[in-house]
């Protein structure tokens, strides 16, 4: 087996500098993708049963099935808080507590009520609080936990040891929650509101450009939660015009593009479990639930993300120039085709749009290639247990490391003993000289001691 290159301290620092936003998002989502994919499949199942008429939207079966699929996405900020805390080095359960605060029913109901009746919410009667939909949100909690990771060391430094166990969690929660709802949480909403304004303006002047932009930029809109700001535009279009051209066609193109990227990665991947993971992510993306494709494949591997942006953009462009109209608000995926059924030309164009998104992204991903994640990463993604041979390999490595550590320890121990002995002898000689108990001739041994010390130091360094 080839010996692996060991990085020096400087090289390690350089490697650390290469850590970018994609790695960060990938790192945050990696541990929770297994839950997202499970919930995504359940949502797809719910939609299929609804479409074929097996369940009704007001039935209790629908409520249960909907809850089963939606709960993970509704409480996504809690899952994200724990994984973000692990990435940023904050306390995971304090981060989860902050997320739980944002999703606490009384808080969400208050936000929802204030937004519905036009009440301006304030804190202590002075500080204005912006309405934010924290359910299923991504960016707010990542920003908040990042802030928490910066606050915690400061608090640890300033709080006296005696009071730390009480004051540390109290202050961390208080400061982080306040900063979260006042400044950090609303950032995504502010961005989204600006975006909604620009998109509405563009839609009146260059309508074909809007689906192109949405098709290309949907992955980023989803990450920042800005797509929620476009929902009112789409609902208004559906209500007033009877169709939407702003959000639904572009998002459908983007989701199908992500499905294309996932299947391309599944085709090219070498590890069986990763192939299966990518294929299942591709299937859920076909049904419009693209989180596992986006966070588990496109973002960490980067090139599939570029491919899906291009593929989604191309399909969105086609949707723009042909003026595809979505006539209902359905999760944008294959099942949403029922919302494009009239006239037939609209349906045909929607099918062509889907085909462009899928084929273009699939081919581009194959051409651009990607670096397959390591076995460990795949295991983390799929939740696959370690095989016996891999377990043995890890044990062998551990034994090897232990043996090396023991040797180093022994060498260091010997060196330290000799250094100590030399220092004591030298000190004793000096004291003897100072008190006149030892003659100068006897200090010759000091030189020997000095040499011995040098030798031991050298030995220590070698070790």
């Amino acid at each position, binding site marked *: 087996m080839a010996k692996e290159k060991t990085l020096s301290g400087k090289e390690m620092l350089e490697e650390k500098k290469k850590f970018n936003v994609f790695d960060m998002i990938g790192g945050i989502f990696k541990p929770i993708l297994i839950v997202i994919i499970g919930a995504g499949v359940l949502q797809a199942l719910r939609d299929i049963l609804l479409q074929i008429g097996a369940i009704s939207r*007001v039935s209790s079966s629908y*409520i249960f099935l909907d809850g089963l699929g939606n709960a993970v996405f509704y409480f996504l900020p809690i899952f994200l808080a724990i994984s973000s805390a692990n990435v940023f080095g904050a306390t995971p359960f304090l981060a989860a507590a902050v997320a739980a605060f944002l999703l606490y029913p009384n808080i969400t109901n*208050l936000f929802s*009520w204030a937004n*519905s009746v*036009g*009440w301006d919410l304030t804190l202590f009667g002075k500080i204005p609080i912006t309405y934010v939909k924290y359910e299923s949100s991504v960016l707010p909690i990542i920003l908040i936990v990042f802030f928490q990771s910066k606050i915690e060391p400061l608090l640890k430094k300033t709080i006296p040891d005696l009071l730390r166990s009480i004051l540390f969690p109290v202050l961390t929660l208080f400061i982080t929650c306040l900063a979260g709802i006042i400044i950090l949480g609303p950032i995504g909403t502010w961005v989204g509101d600006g975006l909604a304004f620009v998109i509405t303006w563009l839609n009146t002047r260059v309508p074909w450009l809007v689906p192109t932009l949405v098709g290309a930029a949907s992955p980023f809109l989803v990450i920042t939660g800005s797509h929620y700001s476009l929902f009112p535009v789409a609902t208004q279009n559906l209500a*007033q015009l009877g169709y939407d051209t702003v959000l639904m066609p572009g998002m459908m193109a983007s989701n199908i593009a992500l499905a294309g990227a996932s299947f391309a990665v599944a085709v090219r991947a070498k590890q069986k479990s990763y192939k299966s993971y990518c294929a299942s992510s591709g299937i859920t993306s076909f049904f419009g639930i693209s989180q596992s494709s986006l966070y588990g494949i496109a973002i960490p591997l980067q090139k599939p993300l570029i491919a899906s942006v291009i593929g989604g953009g191309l399909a969105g462009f086609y949707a723009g120039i042909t003026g595809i109209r979505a006539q209902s608000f359905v999760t944008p995926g294959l099942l949403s085709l029922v919302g494009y059924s009239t006239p037939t030309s609209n349906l045909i164009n929607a099918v062509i749009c889907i085909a462009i998104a899928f084929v273009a992204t699939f081919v581009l991903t194959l051409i651009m290639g990607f670096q397959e994640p390591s076995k460990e990463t795949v295991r983390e993604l799929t939740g696959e247990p370690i095989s016996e041979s891999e377990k043995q390999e890890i044990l062998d490595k551990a034994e090897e490391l232990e043996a090396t550590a023991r040797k180093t320890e022994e060498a260091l121990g010997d060196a330290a003993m000799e250094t100590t002995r030399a220092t004591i002898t030298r000190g004793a000689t000096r004291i003897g000289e100072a008190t006149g108990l030892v003659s100068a001739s006897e200090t010759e041994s000091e030189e020997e001691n000095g040499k011995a010390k040098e030798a031991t130091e050298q030995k220590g360094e070698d070790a």
Partner: protein
Amino acid sequence: MKRACVLLLILVCLFGLSACSKKNVDKVFTSFVPPKTGTVNEDIQVDETNHITIVSTNTITPNPDKPDEKILIVTYDWKNGSEKQKVTHGSFLLTAKQDGVTLKPNLKHVDDKFKLVTPIQGGETLHDIQQGFELLSDNEVTLSIKGSMQVVFEDGVPKGSYPVEVPVTVN
């Protein structure tokens, strides 16, 4: 471990089977079922405890330079039929739609917006609460009043609750 799992599985199956067995007397779940629609000046019970009466609606033009910008002011009474002190928040929600589009709320031109957060005792009625909505056109507006129930039982079958709709004309 395996034994425990098998035992648990058997128990789950037994419980499942027992649920399928027919009992002599089936328990029928019931709840208050709100009406689908209501009218102005009607006492509308929106859930088990809350009653709303839409007293009046009027349209204002706050800015004379912009005659197209109109606001619908809805005045209503709320009776808290429960035994507890409550505020409007959490008891019911009044929203409005015009041409299928949810209207943007506006509290700038109502008489006393603090009535929305004034607590009242159980059995009391809070009169002349006002809420404003920014109109999109002169077409009819549908007010939606949703009570605090999440699920209603219709003939013993649980269903998602729904708002009571009150059509009002824009004058």
